[in-house]
């Protein structure tokens, strides 16, 4: 029979076999569609948000192209060049500052934004109150107007029409900002927005040399000029400007990164569910084929070749998987509609509803690959069923070794699955880590499942008959032990890992709140204000410990003479090249001599060429050796320094940590402000802030506790998302368990009936089955606890380089969850078996 004839006949027979419907494939369909729906849903939502990002790029960016300068505005020459080459330009200033009520009784740190009359070039702000922004911000009856976020009104106890003080001016609140599309997603917003006119800002007196102020110039390009061309010309005209230029291609990199990260992360959710579901798919195919042994053997007796059998069942499994994938895709397509409806307001951009084919095709491809990887093994075994099976009872022939060629084919599909997961992820490293982790976890659980079966087979026979029956059921042919341990174990491992990670992070935060890390940061201290600040801190009882260092901001523009734009940074250190970094200099000794791991610190009276102490980890990642050069652009001026030493930084102490600490020199003469930390008691917190801000109103006080609470909230949200993974994976695991129980249902009924005939009571049987599922749950939970603990320890100590502590609670909760899942699901399935009357079954048998 040639290939064409074989396939034709396989198609014909497959169709005939499927006449009975999809009975028995419920678990198969549920497992497959759950994973496919998760991947398609997440991908579609990410695509919808990304489409929104693209469509609103101009509005989010505030123009076709945006220039950003730190510390200083554009020069007249630069501004003239920009104005001459565009249709319109809008200048914006952003900084942090304190806002006070008129009587000075309340104040709040705000994100201050000064705008010109052209703002916004594109789109519009959503305002409650006066809707004409320019009119609202204009000077009227001698007072400038302000637009604020609602949070500020609540915090200061003021309303629209009231006045607040900012720096040296008093502004009247005229309107409330409901939505500011160009604000983007800055993870570190330290306060609500307060928007005033640039002319008003100039009168505040807050614009001081060295203050952390960002100047933006957004432009509306003439027709026919692309952002790319314009950017190139700007860079060519002012190669040393030190500005950061963004165009529509990277309008909102923070949002893009957010979408990429969340998208990748949630795709991994889907893949986890799909992989766990894959075990269910494999089990379902195996049990389906187990029921087809007689048919396969009959066809073999009638002369059907093995390849026809394989093709016939491959077609059937393929057709059913198409149904499962289609169901998954329908849910996947529908879920973003629901998600946008529910969380649309909280998304950084307005998502665009629609059908996005790329994530749909990707989800379908993953569905097909998972089906192939997990079903080819049992399908290949079906091919090997002999015609002799009709004459002789064959025990579980489907689960045996399928032969090396099949294993190689499964391996190839698994490899395609892994490579696809990595290549299609926006964060390939994360995906690669997931793939390796998933392979390790699946392998570990498969081996452990195998070991549990082998050990239970070799255990001495217990005297207790119920325990003996329970242990025998663990290793009986065609049993569910391996599949359940693998599928349920994966989800439980994630649960334990997440719980321990959260416990450790919380322990760290508690440490922060006990005063082991600074309670306050004070930024924008002018050099002449430092003595005042130190006097205030010293006046407390006990005196408040402070640390004050000069700070200015600059961008790394070159390393070892290679322009930053040509450096491909290692992913974990990419942030160093991404934007402005805080820089400092010191004439004194190193912060902690023990942390110098390579090279020498400069002497106290050093006055030679500019040197820099570099973060050891980053230096290693960028391969920056002692003597190599780094160029930073400070206030438009390139400053090149030689690496003098590598310094190990403990980022977790939340102290003043700079990647780059310079020797005194050119940098010392640049305009700068100071940053200070204060270690203080709970009682001193508010008093210090009041005293400093009262006397030095331009200084911004950042309360670490508030920031950490914000971070904790973000972590809590991430924790919820991770728990969703665990729950989806556990749900898939429970489906596998249910599938295994359903598959063994007939045998269970038969066993129960025979045991009843032999005198076993319902109680005996319930005890035996509860023991069986209890052992299964305990073993799975124990393994998941160990693996989850190891995974959390690895993330904490190796990836986050933070201290580690073990907590028993997650393990205990996992054990309980596992027992509830296994015993609960197991008993529901077996109670039906116990209710069967013995006589009818024996008569029919």
């Amino acid at each position, binding site marked *: *029979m040639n290939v064409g*004839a074989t396939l034709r*006949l396989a198609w*014909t027979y497959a169709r*005939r*076999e*499927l*006449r*009975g419907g999809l009975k028995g494939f419920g678990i198969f369909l549920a497992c497959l569609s759950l994973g496919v729906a998760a991947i398609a849903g997440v991908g579609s939502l990410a695509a919808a948000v990304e489409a929104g990002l693209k469509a609103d790029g101009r509005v989010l960016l505030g123009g076709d192209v945006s220039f950003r300068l730190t510390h200083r505005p554009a020069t007249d020459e630069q501004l003239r060049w920009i104005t001459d080459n565009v249709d319109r330009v809008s200048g914006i200033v952003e900084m942090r500052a304190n806002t006070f009520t008129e009587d000075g009784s309340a104040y709040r740190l705000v994100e201050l934004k000064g705008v010109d009359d052209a703002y916004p070039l594109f789109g519009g702000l959503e305002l409650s109150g006066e809707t004409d922004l320019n009119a609202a911000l204009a000077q009227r009856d001698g007072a400038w107007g302000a637009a604020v976020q609602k949070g500020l009104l609540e915090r200061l106890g003021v309303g629209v029409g009231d006045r607040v003080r900012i720096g040296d001016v008093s502004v009247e609140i005229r309107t409330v900002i409901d939505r500011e599309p160009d604000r983007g997603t800055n993870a570190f917003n330290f306060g609500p927005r307060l928007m005033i006119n640039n002319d008003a800002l100039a009168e505040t007196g807050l614009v001081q040399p060295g203050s952390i102020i960002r100047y933006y110039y957004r432009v509306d390009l003439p027709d026919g000029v692309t952002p790319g061309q314009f950017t190139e010309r700007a860079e060519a005209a002012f190669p040393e400007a030190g500005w950061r230029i963004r165009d529509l291609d990277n309008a909102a990199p923070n949002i893009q990164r957010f979408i990429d990260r969340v998208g990748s992360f949630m795709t991994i959710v889907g893949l986890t569910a799909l992989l766990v579901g894959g075990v269910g798919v494999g089990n379902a195919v195996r049990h389906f084929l187990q029921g087809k042994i*007689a*048919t396969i*053997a*009959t*066809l*073999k*007796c*009638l*002369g*059907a*070749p*093995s390849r*026809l059998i394989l093709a016939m069942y491959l077609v059937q499994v393929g057709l059913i998987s198409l149904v499962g994938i289609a169901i998954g895709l329908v849910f996947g397509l529908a879920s973003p509609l629901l998600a946008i409806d529910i969380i649309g307001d909280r998304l950084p951009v307005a998502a665009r509803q629609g059908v996005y084919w790329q994530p749909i095709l990707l989800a379908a491809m993953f569905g097909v690959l998972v089906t192939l990887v997990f079903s080819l093994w049992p399908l290949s075994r079906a091919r090997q069923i*002999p*015609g*002799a099976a*009709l*004459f*002789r009872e064959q025990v579980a022939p489907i689960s045996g070794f399928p032969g090396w060629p099949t294993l190689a084919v499964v391996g190839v599909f698994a490899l395609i699955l892994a490579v696809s997961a990595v290549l299609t992820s926006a964060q390939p490293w994360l995906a690669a880590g997931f793939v390796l982790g998933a392979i390790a976890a699946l392998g570990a659980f498969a081996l452990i499942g195998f070991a549990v079966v082998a050990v239970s087979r070799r255990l001495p026979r217990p005297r207790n008959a119920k325990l003996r029956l329970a242990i025998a059921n663990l290793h009986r042919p065609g049993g569910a032990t391996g599949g359940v341990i693998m599928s349920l174990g994966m989800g439980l491992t994630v649960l334990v890992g997440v719980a321990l990670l959260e416990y450790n992070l919380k322990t760290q935060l508690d440490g922060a709140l006990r005063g082991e890390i600074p309670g306050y940061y004070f930024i924008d201290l002018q050099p002449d204000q430092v003595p005042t600040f130190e006097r205030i801190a010293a006046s407390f009882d006990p005196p408040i410990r402070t640390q004050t260092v000069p700070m200015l901001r600059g961008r790394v523009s070159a390393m070892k003479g290679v322009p930053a734009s040509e450096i491909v940074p290692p992913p974990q250190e990419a942030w160093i090249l991404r934007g402005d970094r805080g820089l400092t200099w010191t004439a004194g000794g190193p912060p902690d001599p023990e942390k110098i791991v390579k090279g020498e610190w400069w002497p106290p009276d050093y006055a030679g060429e500019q040197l820099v102490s570099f973060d050891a980890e980053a230096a290693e990642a960028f391969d920056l050796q002692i003597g190599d050069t780094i160029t930073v652009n400070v206030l438009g001026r390139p400053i090149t320094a030689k690496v003098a030493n590598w310094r190990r930084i403990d980022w977790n102490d939340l102290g003043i940590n700079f990647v780059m600490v310079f020797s005194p020199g050119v940098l010392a003469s640049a305009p700068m402000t100071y940053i200070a930390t204060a270690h203080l008691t709970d009682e001193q917190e508010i008093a210090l802030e009041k005293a400093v801000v009262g006397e030095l109103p331009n200084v911004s006080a950042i309360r670490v506790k508030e920031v950490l609470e914000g971070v904790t909230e973000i972590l809590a949200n991430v924790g919820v998302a991770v728990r969703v993974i665990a729950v989806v994976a556990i749900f898939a695991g429970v489906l596998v368990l249910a599938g295994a129980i359903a598959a063994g249902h007939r045998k269970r009924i038969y066993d129960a009936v025979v045991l009843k005939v032999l005198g076993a009571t319902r109680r005996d049987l319930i005890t035996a089955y509860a023991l069986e599922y209890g052992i299964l749950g305990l073993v799975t939970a124990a393994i998941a606890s160990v693996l989850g603990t190891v995974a959390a320890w690895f993330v904490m100590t190796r990836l986050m380089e933070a201290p580690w502590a073990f907590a028993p609670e997650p393990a205990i909760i996992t054990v309980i969850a596992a027992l509830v899942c296994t015993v609960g699901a197991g008993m529901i399935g077996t109670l039906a078996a116990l209710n069967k009357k013995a006589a009818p079954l024996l008569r029919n048998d």
Partner: protein
Amino acid sequence: MSPSDTQGPLMVLEDVHLRLGSEAGEVHILRGVDFEAGRGETISIVGPSGSGKTSMMMVAAGLERATSGTVMVDGHDFATAGEDELALLRRDRMGIVFQSFHLVPTMSALENVAVPLELAGRSDAFDRAGEMLAAVGLDHRLSHYPGQLSGGEQQRTALARAFAVEPGLLLADEPTGNLDHDTGEQIIEQMFGLCERFGTTLMLITHDPGLAARCERMVTMQDGMLSERAPAARKAV
């Protein structure tokens, strides 16, 4: 399917041994079986349960490989034939009838009978299947599924399927074991009739001495070895 020696015996078993492994150790099932079946001959195999009758039939069908010895059917040496070659031999030259019928439950009676013809790539598979079902008196049950047929009807369908390719050899393992006496009688009548019509050699395993006696030869299997009784007179059918 060549070669076919129309002069020599259809089936030859020479010093056939079959050993199978089990958890309890190796079991020596066939212990040097010598057997010949001529073309058109009807032979019954009797013997106690576990004596090796079914194993001998499986070896003869190419479903089980002999551990040693020679097995030849219609000139084909099983020792050198691959799995697919044996499958083709069964498809084109053999019919098998089982005690438990073994129809494909998801196929109608007509489709079940057509399977070997379809496997052989015959374009007239369904016409021929219909004729065979008519020959066993089931032309009114063509579109019925096995679950909708009585035991006797299922076995007649199996008989029609076995004879669809006009096989040279019919292997029947307790074909009436699951049927009542009268129905069994009808099946046996039809089976012998079809064997005679197509000149098919019949190898029949049975516990029923009366049925065994209807065959031209009767051999007894005891502990994996054959002994032949005196040929019985073939009853007229």
